[in-house]
């Protein structure tokens, strides 16, 4: 299995532990990754506020690069996934629009032919890799650990662009994956809500209130950690948890795992190799509960 790898900006920026953890588990899983070094930022929905056509053009450029490689795209970021899916939906359903966007790409010698179908690692594992194959590689099941899923808005909405109708299993894929890892799923209504990150620099109080709400909800339900396929959610839920704790006037201490870290732990990879020490919220109690050496 081979994919054109789209890691996104944050896995190499604010969450530098994510990129190596993803590469590491893909190597162990036998998923080959080919990077597209010239692929730009998706725009994250922010650039699209200013100019949606520009955002779609940048994504069409990435899609064209993957077409030239003859590989399907895999990402490790819910936000990148959502923005790419939305762009792809508009481009595939409007030939005139696609032609307009391609006219911008022509100077670089690129053309998007409309065949891309970008997939998040989470979807790749469930849909392409296969649950049975993945299960055989789980050598250290996370039994006794209670994990709360946190999807990130753009991996669940809007459902039409994300192909949820044709792939209904996507809406419960994170819970499914947690079960495969041998952990217990902590279910709560906040799992598909917003982490607050997009308004962090605009209305910090509201942003941090969202962090407090979700982390305290799962804490009250007895979760040992949260798992997220979105590094932007991780930045807020982990990095701003101390502030959330102060604002809510309650101690929280909820470790937030990136999806590849949770998978890696269940594959027997050490917490250190997975970069758990780089987290803001102390992961030591979780590691102790797993009964492994940090």
């Amino acid at each position, binding site marked *: 299995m081979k994919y054109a790898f789209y890691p996104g900006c944050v896995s190499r920026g604010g969450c530098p532990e994510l990129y190596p953890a993803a590469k590491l588990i893909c190597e162990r899983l036998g998923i080959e990754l080919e990077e597209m070094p010239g692929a730009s930022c998706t725009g994250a*929905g922010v650039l699209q506020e200013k*100019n949606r056509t520009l955002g779609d053009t*940048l994504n069409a450029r990435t899609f064209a690069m993957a077409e030239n490689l003859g590989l399907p795209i895999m990402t490790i970021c819910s936000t990148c996934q959502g923005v790419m899916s939305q762009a792809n939906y508009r481009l595939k359903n409007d030939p005139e629009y696609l032609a307009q966007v391609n006219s911008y790409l022509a100077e670089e010698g690129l053309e998007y032919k409309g065949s891309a179908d970008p997939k998040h690692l989470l979807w790749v594992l469930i849909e392409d890799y296969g649950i049975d194959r993945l299960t055989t590689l789980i050598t250290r099941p996370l039994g006794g650990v209670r994990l709360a899923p946190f999807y990130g808005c753009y991996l669940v909405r809007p459902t039409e662009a994300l192909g949820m109708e044709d792939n209904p299993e996507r809406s419960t894929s994170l819970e499914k994956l947690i079960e495969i890892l041998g952990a217990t799923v902590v279910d709560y209504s906040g799992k598909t809500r917003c982490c607050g990150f997009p308004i962090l620099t605009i209305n910090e109080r509201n942003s941090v209130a969202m962090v407090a709400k979700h982390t305290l909800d799962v804490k009250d339900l007895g979760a040992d950690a949260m798992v997220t396929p979105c590094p932007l959610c991780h930045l807020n839920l982990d990095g701003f948890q101390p502030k959330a704790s102060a604002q809510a006037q309650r101690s929280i201490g909820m470790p937030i795992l990136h999806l590849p870290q949770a998978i890696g732990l269940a594959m027997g990879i050490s917490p250190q190799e997975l970069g758990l020490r780089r987290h803001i919220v102390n992961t030591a109690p979780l590691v102790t509960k797993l009964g492994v050496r940090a």
Partner: protein
Amino acid sequence: MDLTLRVRRFDPDSDNPEPYWQDFSVTVEDNATVLDALIKVREDVDGTLSLRCSCRSSICGSCAMRINGHATLACKAQARDSLGDDNVIVVEPAGVMHVLKDLVVDFDLFWDKIMAVEPYLQPQGPEPEGEYIASNESMLHLSGVTACIMCGACVSDCTVLEVDPTFMGPAALAKAYRFTADPRDGDEEGHSEDRLRMLSEASGMWDCTRCFECVQVCPKGVAPMDRIMSLRDQALAAGMDKNYGARHVQAFSDLVEHSGWLDELRIVPMTMGLGNVPALLNVMPEALRALSHGKLPPLVHPELPGAENIRNLFEKVEQGGKEPEGHH
């Protein structure tokens, strides 16, 4: 078809006024809606069950409530499609708004926000001699917003309103857009600068998280979040860029244009304003904590190979004009 309605109930006049769950098992026609099932419960099982409904045809907007965790019109939700494990359908009152009894919520919060955006045309130029003329195209565009039936589903599931009731919210902001995008509103050019200035303030358009909840739950395809994005577009075009939200968009765009990918180290000071010492000091604890954990983005942010092609695209597309308003 046999099913169980698991209903979140609340009676303020009971001895113990706490919300509780109650299961009702009913048999309904195969083509019944969730509303049909609820009415059956009220008529045949428990006459004290309170809910609002009227048209039963997704037109009046009375029966918005949460079904299986998400706001929708009970009359639009087919019971068959809503069945969960053990044929259970979970029914709760709409979120955010105060529950009066069972599935009935107080709409004051909803209407207060709608009224706050002054939902009526306010032409500012001289009155025309005949009627105000608006193009068919502009009215067709607005018909997407005027399709709103004021059901409150978007307000119920808004992630910002959940933590901050002062946020104007999706319904009122979409309603505001209905006027800012109306060529008859505002000055002679149809620009509604006063409105945009008011909507750019705290609790307005820039407080939306872009989470898509309102787009997803709206039963009429109004796509309130898309309208909020169009408001931002209008505000930026009108030069109203002296706030964190507008500066964030501009900084993000400039940084991606420059190197092809986001420089996370620089976006925060660029959004806050380099001279904004209190705001920068406020994020210092997080920045230092990130630094001590080896989490700070690289100090030197290299540009991507072929970044000149990306800069070129920025120039070409921005010159090429934007897509028509509301295109999605």
